[in-house]
């Protein structure tokens, strides 16, 4: 199982180590650092590295490397999933996941890691359970603690821990009982030069914020559940009922959690909300080129497209650019050759356009590669797949909860080829 964990910052410095079995010398990280040196970008470091005596499995997240050391045959996905949980735990406890935050709460992170694994086996990874064992820091509590000498560590067994619903603690009480669901959809798409869809799919997620007293048993139903190609659920969802009736029936964890993720990839169902007209060209002779990009709304179901942003990695041989935007503003970093055009809200009457000239370094040949445009956008109050929540029913408790559903569509990996 998982032997050790090292946290490493982008410059290759190890700033935390934790061992769950015997201590492994940190020199083992050298193999990883070597691979990191070879990779062009930190994202490109291979996640599984073989050393003479260990396996190093790592993730890159929030500009940090989480590197685990294993010695025996362990499912790598198991390790990677766990590492992501560690990152999520840090985010959850301290509001962000960064080197500074970890260094500021070194001891608490260490205590948490000890709770999360025992002998390399996961022990408590549910946020609800962890928070009962070790309370997250708040400014108020740290003041109180210093005054009264009470501690951050819970001294009773988390109530949900050994039961069959480990995700929920017992005895939850709220004065305002509320349950909110966000249906968030991301469009992953590749459009080719002519604007035709090469590939498109929707990754959806239902995020829940449930603050209900007692042991509520919820049933959430959709108007059109058959739309979904593949679903994965939080462990609380009863799979049998989904299979037979296509409803989500569950006793929710307390607080924020991801209820389900889903996937829609039937080509014809995926509406593409914007179109992009673009041309990036370089003249055969001379050292100049032109860039001309226009973005317009396509299938938006009558909603407004907001937060539109176009990102382009220009070829390395570009010397300078001179562009004008009819809407929004653009920034260009000559070091990374990254052009970002922040458009904002899309106005169907007056389409935003960015155009101008690119000049190449003297003597540089015409660039070989075609830069790709990455598009960011969001549409409020719309799930682009057409998914709609029908109703939410609650059993097991008497009170009437506040209920709410919100929809939002975003661009995921949305790419336009040139």
């Amino acid at each position, binding site marked *: *199982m998982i032997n050790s964990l090292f946290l490493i910052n982008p410059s290759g410095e190890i700033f*935390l180590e*934790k*061992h*769950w079995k*015997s201590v*492994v010398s*940190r*020199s083992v990280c050298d193999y990883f650092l070597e691979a990191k040196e070879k*990779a*062009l*970008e930190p*994202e*490109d470091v*291979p996640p599984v590295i*073989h050393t003479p*005596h260990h396996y190093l499995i*790592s993730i*890159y*997240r929030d500009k940090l490397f989480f590197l685990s050391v294993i010695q*025996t*045959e*362990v*499912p*790598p*996905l*198991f390790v*990677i*999933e766990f590492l992501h949980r560690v990152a999520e735990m840090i985010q959850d406890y301290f509001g962000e996941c960064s080197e500074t935050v970890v260094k500021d709460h*070194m001891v608490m992170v*260490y205590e948490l890691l000890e709770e999360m694994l*025992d*002998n390399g*086996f*996961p022990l408590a*990874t549910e946020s609800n359970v962890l928070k009962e064992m070790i309370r997250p820091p708040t400014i108020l509590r740290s003041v109180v603690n*210093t005054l009264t*000498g009470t501690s951050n*560590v819970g*001294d009773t*067994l988390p109530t949900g821990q*050994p039961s069959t619903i*480990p995700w929920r603690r017992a005895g939850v009480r709220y004065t305002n009982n509320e349950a909110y669901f966000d249906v968030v959809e991301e469009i*992953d798409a590749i459009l080719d030069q002519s604007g035709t869809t*090469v*590939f498109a*799919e929707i990754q959806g997620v239902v995020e829940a914020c449930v603050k209900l007293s007692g042991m509520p048993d919820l049933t959430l139903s959709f108007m059109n559940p058959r739309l979904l*190609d*593949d679903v*994965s659920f939080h462990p609380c969802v009863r*799979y049998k009922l989904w*299979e037979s009736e296509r409803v989500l029936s569950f006793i929710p964890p307390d607080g924020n959690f*991801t209820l*389900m*993720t889903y*996937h829609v*990839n039937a080509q014809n169902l995926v509406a593409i909300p914007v179109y992009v007209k673009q041309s990036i060209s370089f003249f055969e002779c001379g050292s100049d080129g032109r860039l001309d990009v226009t973005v317009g709304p396509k299938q938006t179901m009558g909603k407004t497209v907001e937060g539109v942003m176009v990102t382009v990695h220009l070829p390395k041989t570009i010397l300078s650019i001179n562009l004008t935007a009819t809407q929004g503003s653009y920034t260009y970093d000559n070091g990374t050759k990254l052009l970002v055009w922040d458009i904002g809200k899309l106005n169907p009457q007056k389409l935003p356009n960015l155009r101008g000239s690119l000049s190449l370094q003297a003597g540089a040949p015409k660039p070989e*590669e075609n830069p*790709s445009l990455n598009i960011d956008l969001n549409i409020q109050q719309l799930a682009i797949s057409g998914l709609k929540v029908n109703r939410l029913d609650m059993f097991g408790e008497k009170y009437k909860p506040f209920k709410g559903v919100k929809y939002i569509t975003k661009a995921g*990996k949305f790419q336009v080829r040139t």
Partner: protein
Amino acid sequence: MEWANQLCENRQFGSKMTDSKYFTTTKKGEIFELKAELNSDKKEKKKEAVKKVIASMTVGKDVSALFPDVVNCMQTDNLELKKLVYLYLMNYAKSQPDMAIMAVNTFVKDCEDANPLIRALAVRTMGCIRVDKITEYLCEPLRKCLKDEDPYVRKTAAVCVAKLHDINAQLVEDQGFLDTLKDLISDSNPMVVANAVAALSEIAESHPNSNLLDLNPQSINKLLTALNECTEWGQIFILDCLANYTPRDDRESQSICERVTPRLSHANSAVVLSAVKVLMKFMEMLPKDLDYYSTLLKKLAPPLVTLLSAEPELQYVALRNINLIVQKRPEILKHEMKVFFVKYNDPIYVKLEKLDIMIRLASQANIAQVLAELKEYATEVDVDFVRKAVRAIGRCAIKVEQSAERCVSTLLDLIQTKVNYVVQEAIVVIKDIFRKYPNKYESVIATLCENLDSLDEPEARAAMIWIVGEYAERIDNADELLESFLEGFHDESTQVQLQLLTAIVKLFLKKPTETQELVQQVLSLATQDSDNPDLRDRGYIYWRLLSTDPVAAKEVVLAEKPLISEETDLIEPTLLEELICHIGTLASVYHKPPSAFVEGSRGVMHKRLPARTGSGESTESPDVGAAGGSAPEAAPSIIPSQGDLLGDLLNLDMAPPTTSGPPPPSTGMQMGGMDLLGGGLDSLMGDESEPLGGDIGGSPAMGAGFGAAPAVMPASLNAPVGGGLGDLFDLGGVGMPMGAYIPPKIVWLPAMKAKGLEISGTFARRAGVIQMELILTNKAMSVMTDFAIQFNRNSFGLAPAGPLQVLTPLGPNQTIEVSLPLSTVGPVMKMDPLNNLQVAVKNNIDVFYFSCQYPISMLFVEDGKMERQVFLATWKDIPNDNESQFQIKDCHLNSDAASSKLQGSNIFTIAKRTVEGQDMLYMSIKLSNGIWVLAELRVQAGNPNYTISLKCRAPEVSQCVFQCYEAVLKN
């Protein structure tokens, strides 16, 4: 000797902590202050101090000097403080075993606490303290906790058994903890079940014979029930355990599949992939005409697709596994091509994997789409990716015949871009297309020739030269082109040189009149001016052929070549089956069987897919069972117990191997002749396939010829050369080595037990070849014939490399000496003792069994000398638990003599250091299965007792290695 000093210091550091060492890492004042704070009366101050200590510890500072002060804080009712002290203890107890004992009382008391959290915490922490004395005290509390009323305590205790087993396996067995653990599989709480399964699986990994996870329909049922209710991690353990089960029939298989399918919708991708593994394996048993079978197939695709929208690291592992799944069952994902399209911002490791799967899924139906994509990728920025994309276009052409023309025109488009590396890759793949579809696309040769000058990579140059040679009759200026390459002949790489030689010979055979001069020039360059033996030999063979029989030369050199196969990089079916059983594991990421890289002498079981049950189905999947090659193995998950071994031996095929093995080593003369003939012809016939692409399979005859030649070579070196190879290895100025140690022959099989056949023997390692040297004596009254030998599976995979050579009948009272070369590539199973070997010998009378032990020094390979830096790093890297110390008594050699004696047995001295009259020798040994053993030998002048410390990742071998030291030094 800087590094040796450092090493020495480190070793002292491990055993005796000194203050001076400590202060190099922390300021003196800081420690002093902490000490005072730890002993403060105020609770809060104490806690803060412990926190500071822990903080220093987490960043890697050494605060072990505070051990007594921290342990003093342990007796407290403040849980946070207690936990902090425990954290500290776990880290440092090992370095202060005597002090750690102070903590035992508190632990034992805490195990009785009314609060289950405290009980669990105590038993959990105790198990993490790897000190022998503490583990003794652990047994009683652990026994109680395993039967605790609170499931939280029980599940913690289950894991603790695994910890204890890691520290002292014998103790766990003696105390009966394994049985208690097995009982926990029937526990009422699913979390306890999951942890018991996890603990047992981990223990079983180091104990392949123990039959720990005895799976039967009842226990399977319990696991399936627990599966629905336990945590996500528990589900992974249970699913992985289920995958080892072999259902009795298709009905049981189907019912398990039905109960596992809901796991495909789990949010945790590791659960999903483990479920996929179980389904892929058990599906094998379902009849294909069953409705459920096709339902299941349909259910597998969506979760696999969903895995690809996860984080890139998860995607990578998923893709490596999908690569296996599409090879085994292409139908699952055949409609999902688009999800493998590469996105611009995918990390490079994801891009490359996606590309691979795209080619596997390419078919006539989707080839247009795939080609459009590949062409797009060929204009990306990343060079590695672009190259692979171009290659992929070539592979598509070979795979989907209908698309070949389109692929060729796409490649020509790409050549027009004139991007150097694109052009070179394109030429390499076009060469393959020519081989697959001869006489179809030669019209493009003119375009290729235009780019001749831009080729600077050997592979591309070789490909181009091959094309010119192969189609010399259609290229008007072929001679000029080849001549231009010839100018810089000696600067070319071997690959290009060999290709140039062959191409010019081809040209000569096609257009003899104009090219006589050219061919003579190249033959003389190859045979006289080159020091590359391959090139020289090939040159001579062509020369001889051309000068003695040009017609034969033409037949050989211009023979019609076999077409290259469709898919060039498919995983071999038996390996694929094994890997399917290992979906989701490291093996599946590396596409290698676990035995190839899991360290240590653990007996790795080769897993196999179950055979389909039901009538008439077995013939439908010829890849199951038949592809095994050797004798059929037992059912995959059943670990043979000691009782089964005899049966196993009886089942072995006793017939002398026929064509599959290497030819019997007869006299050296004969061997040489054969080799020359076989090898020469082969290289002549196969000359295209070798340099142009190792992955292209030749004709079967060719393959066999190649395969046999190297295997014969070592066998013909039988004569005792006395470590001729050993001499080549640097001795570090320690003196000449003597020959390898060979134990005296002993009687292995007395005549009375074997109907008159007496066998005595020994083992030797000569010139890198392991030999079993046998003396067979016939003490019976009748003649013995038809001798054959077989080994049972053993720890290091020893197996006869050829048949037992007893050519003449053995008459009464006759004796014959035979030496049998051994290989180490046989099936592996851990034996006890490790070096035990079970042998079966057959003759015309009966089959006899005996077992013997071989000195492990036979397995010490010649390249066992470690680099100093590597040695230092490895020594540090191996945990101290793995170190064992032995005494060698009454040895009167000085250290140099000892060192050179050991070197004869491939125990290499890397450095020597003298401290206060004591010589320390640092040595390394490499075993044939790749395990390294590091040793420190201490020799005190005038003291006949040596001390030896051995460190190894697989500490099991230490005892055997020590025995070898003793044997070598005393003989």
